[in-house]
């Protein structure tokens, strides 16, 4: 049952750089545990990230890994997956990385239903650049670039992905570590574009500025606002205010792009081409 860390981590690179109490280590462990429980072939698994705190995760993970440019991890991963469909391609991204600069690639990958697993380490802030607001910062929350409270309305990442045609979207938090692991397992196993919104506490920048002084306070803040998807459906809009659903929000079968492309190649090569 114990997690064989030295099989999955680049132990020589540890300890990692994340701040004490940062949730990213918890989400990364959930990924490692999911891969372990799924018994994925570690030689056929590629982990891709963009730029930001979350993006440092692949550097610690003992797989083929790629640390790309800000917002573009999903586009790099698209090339990897199309080129070698037999690879398990997991993208680690942040809320800013995925939904601000990377938003265009996120919605198109969801639309295409390419077999990628995208895990968003969502800490509602830009941590690496020390605390600016992101498209996921709740209205009214404080950040270095929202000194008077966040004015804009944030995204709901799962709804964004579903709106783009995504057929697997789930959410959990670092508080619900076991559920988060199970959802990541399900997302990796899902044949198609699978998105997991993983709420992860940033005590250093988000927490300190928003009266959530300790990592635990922030994790409790996640717990208090999370509603299992089964009861979420029964809540009225007012009851949903300030809360979010956790669990699998959508899961449906859909034709997967590399599968369809494989069939095209087979047809053309049978016909011998024009």
């Amino acid at each position: 049952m114990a997690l064989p860390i030295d099989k999955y981590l680049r132990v020589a690179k540890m300890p990692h750089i994340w701040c004490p109490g940062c949730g990213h280590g918890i989400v990364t462990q959930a990924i490692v545990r999911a891969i372990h429980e799924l018994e994925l072939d570690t030689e056929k698994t590629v982990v891709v990230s963009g730029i930001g705190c979350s993006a440092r995760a692949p550097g610690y993970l003992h797989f083929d890994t790629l640390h790309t440019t800000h917002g573009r991890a999903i586009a790099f991963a698209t090339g990897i997956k199309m080129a070698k469909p037999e690879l398990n391609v997991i993208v680690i991204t942040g809320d800013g990385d995925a939904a601000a600069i990377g938003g265009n690639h996120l919605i198109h990958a969801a639309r295409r239903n390419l077999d990628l697993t995208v895990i968003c380490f969502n800490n509602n802030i830009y941590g690496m650049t020390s605390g600016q607001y992101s498209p996921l910062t709740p209205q009214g929350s404080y950040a270095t670039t929202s000194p008077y409270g966040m004015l804009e309305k944030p995204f709901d990442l799962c709804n964004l992905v579903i709106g783009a045609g995504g057929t697997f979207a789930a959410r959990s938090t670092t508080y619900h570590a076991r559920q988060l692991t199970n959802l990541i397992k399900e997302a990796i196993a899902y044949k198609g574009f699978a998105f997991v919104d993983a709420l992860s506490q940033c005590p250093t920048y988000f927490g300190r500025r928003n009266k959530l002084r300790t990592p635990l306070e922030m994790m409790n803040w996640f717990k208090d606002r999370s509603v299992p998807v089964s009861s979420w459906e029964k809540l009225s809009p007012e009851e949903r205010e300030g809360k979010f659903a956790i669990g699998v929000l959508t899961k449906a079968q859909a034709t997967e792009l590399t599968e369809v492309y494989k069939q095209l190649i087979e047809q053309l090569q049978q016909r011998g081409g024009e």
Partner: protein
Amino acid sequence: MAKNQARLLQGNEAVVEGAIAAGLRFFAGYPITPSTEIAEHCAAKLPVAGGKFIQMEDEIASMAAICGASLAGLKSMTATSGPGFSLKQENLGFAVKGEIPCVVVNVQRVGPSTGMPTSTAQGDVMQARWGSHGDHEIVALCPASVKEAFTLTVEAFNIAEEYRTPVVLLLDETIGHLREKVILPSKEELVVKDREKPNVPPEQYKPFAMDQGRIPGVPPLAAYGEGFKFHVTGLTHGEDGFPTGNPAIAEKQLRRLNEKISSNKKALCKVEKFFLEDAEVVIFAYGATARSARKAVRDARAVGIKAGMLRPITIWPFVEDALLEVKAGRPKAVIVPEMNLGQLVLPVKSVMGDSVPVIPINKLAGQLITPEEILSAMKEAV
């Protein structure tokens, strides 16, 4: 394709034929005049050859996708024009830093900005060299015919694979859209090179080793899915590919990264010398402009002017040695016609110094420079 039969081909189509002959198996692109035909031909021909085509959501994604596919082991290419070339610069820089073999075709059109999308130009030459930030080298080749659009694409892939680097293929719209009768080399006649694979077990593999590889400074490249479990990052990294802030390591790696190109100019810099042996006036011209220059040389010779042309096939690294040879011949002038306000004329001037006058001819609104315009400039110079 019957062996060596004459065909009527468009430049853009020849690029795709050359790419597939060189082993292209992944194309990602985005529609943009005047390069779209390259994407269209790839969409039709790649799956037949067992390769993959994808139209991405923008040029940034296209450049990212071909890096991913190349790291997964496939020869990959993208094609665009000015506006898309600008968008691709950051990820082009990533390909340079990650030493990721790939080919980036830029079919130039009049800029800046939207410019004249269907009109020919050579205004992105300096962007090809310095478009991405930071000290880096780039290799850029420039065809002047449909046949060269084929052969230089093969050459671009060979350089990309041999030197583990992105290679820019700089066409202008004229060459891209030109249809010409052309006899292409057959598959057997082509020399196709592939990236050097590691010959050490995974635990000893250093994806950015300082001292491994057939070519000094060019480390072998594994592929994702082969068990090497290697790391590639845009952060300055050590031999093992992991980030480093240690200036000594960083400096060595950055110098290796640049010198693997700059110290191989002999192998990389290709030129065409046309009637140079006794030339009193030399034209330095590339791409479509070189076609007018060739005619101007013939016309000049017909009226007794000893003219010649030095045509850079390799735009970057700059063909300095070939120009020094020209300089040694003490021509009366070097004429540099370009469909821009003067870009390659700058390094030409720095080579010629005060000893040989350098005369630019510039057009920037999408018209070709004519042989007559070049001839008259020559007459003035001699």
